[in-house]
């Protein structure tokens, strides 16, 4: 039962107040995209043992979607940040690096 801090309202919410939303930072592919990239957009997901970027919604609270950087094994939370971005912010990456030097996830490191 995780607790995550919503970056919009600042509430540290119980997992039961949140709704999970799968992998973060997916790039939408629409009409005009190739079969492979569209297939990858729909179906291909990371499944790491360690650093992961996820989407969560503060569903029972302010209703906002946010991102969380988390270690799937130790459940350490490196940071939560607003969803209106295409990449994790610097301070979150730095927090991950402090714990996992040399980490990488998709194109981020």
């Amino acid at each position, binding site marked *: 039962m995780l607790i995550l801090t919503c970056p*919009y*309202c*600042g*509430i540290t919410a*119980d997992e*039961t*107040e949140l709704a999970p939303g799968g992998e973060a930072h997916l790039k939408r592919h629409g009409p005009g995209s190739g079969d492979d990239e569209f297939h990858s957009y729909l179906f291909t997901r990371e499944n790491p043992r360690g650093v992961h970027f996820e989407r969560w919604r503060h569903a*029972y*609270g*302010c*209703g*906002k979607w946010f991102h969380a950087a988390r270690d799937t094994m130790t459940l350490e939370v490196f940071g939560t940040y607003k969803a209106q971005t295409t990449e994790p912010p610097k301070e979150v990456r730095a927090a991950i690096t402090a714990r996992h030097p040399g980490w990488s996830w998709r194109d981020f490191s």
Partner: protein
Amino acid sequence: MSDPISAMNMARFDGIARIEETGLHGMITLRGDLASKPLKAAATAVAGVAFPGANEANCEDDTGICWMSPDEALVMCPYDTVKAGVAQMQKALARQHVLVVNVSDARAVFQVSGPSAREVMAKLCPVDLSPEAFKPGMFRRTRMAQVAAAFWMVDDQTFRIVCFRSVADYVFSLLRVAAQPGSEVGCF
């Protein structure tokens, strides 16, 4: 036009706390940039209270403003003035990108009061409701057992709860179970 009736028709229960439905309230959902001065001015003009900060509620009797999210506030007013309030805000904000809509009938409001009120709420909500952590003036959206709810404190022993109208019966029953005689926790 016939007399409007609230979801639970003012039902009441006395256990370790008093549970009562407080009837119909004027409620206006206001979505927009909460930092915008015209928006704040329009809301305070209807509610007659200062605009609250994040996770706060400024409520006095039947009027008030609750901070719902970074782009949403709930403006409270007497039920019979809600249409005028909506029209007034819509007019004031006609040039802004905002959404002002009457949601009075979509909600039910309950009051939980008494020395054990905090405990009754803490049986249903995953929120720290100790006197040090949750005080009058604060506003919290969360879940009560299995449904969404929001609440604030009128005073140190009194909560006001807003939930959806369709689950008013469920919420009233939940509160009745949580306030059953002999169920004091003795924690706060």
